[in-house]
């Protein structure tokens, strides 16, 4: 399944792009985090939040959406 990862805020600078497509099968959010930290070691220093369907996921959640948002810490307000 092709999944589009969208990066937000400072992550766009850290990973050097705002979106990318990944072909994955039945992976959990934790597995995605491992992939991300492997691909972009600088992400290890940040506490990432991963959302699908506009909801922050738990590490054990399986990825079911084709659009995944990857956030650095929020800093609104």
């Amino acid at each position, binding site marked *: 399944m092709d999944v589009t990862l*969208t990066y*937000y*805020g*400072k992550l766009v600078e850290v990973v050097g792009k705002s979106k990318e497509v990944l072909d994955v099968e039945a992976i959990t959010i934790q597995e995605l985090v491992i992939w991300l930290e492997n691909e972009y070691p600088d992400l290890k220093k940040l506490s990432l*939040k991963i*959302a699908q369907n*506009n*909801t922050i996921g738990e590490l054990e959640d399986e990825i079911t959406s084709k659009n995944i*948002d990857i*956030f*650095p*810490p*929020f*800093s*609104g*307000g």
Partner: protein
Amino acid sequence: MKKSIKNIFVEGAITPEKIAQSIAAHQSKTGIGAHDIFLGQVRADEIEGKIVQAIEFTAQIEMANQICHDIKEHTFERHPIHCMHIYHSIGKVKAGEICIFVFVSAAHRTTVFNALQEVVNEIKANVPIFGKELFEDETHQWKENK
């Protein structure tokens, strides 16, 4: 019936006139006895000798609106409030300008004091908005909430 999801975002700074209009719109709601308004203003912080000129806000807009909708519903369940409004800037807001406006109204003051603090803390913690602090020399730093 579910309320529709409102757009909290305002392009650029939130003006004092918008705040006045929002206050005036509550004068027909004569069960209200107390309003509490939180405004966030962009500070010209000095960071390593450079001064913040503006903050540029980006967001996952659809999710931010959904989360603010949930925060509202949750707040109406827990507190006897009459009205609640959340507005946040998107794009560039200069130092001294307002970038967040949260407005809670109820019959009594203790209700609005309690509800407003909760809501502002929840927005800061849970809404996917990102601030980029811009310096005069076109460098920047990513804002961090404490």
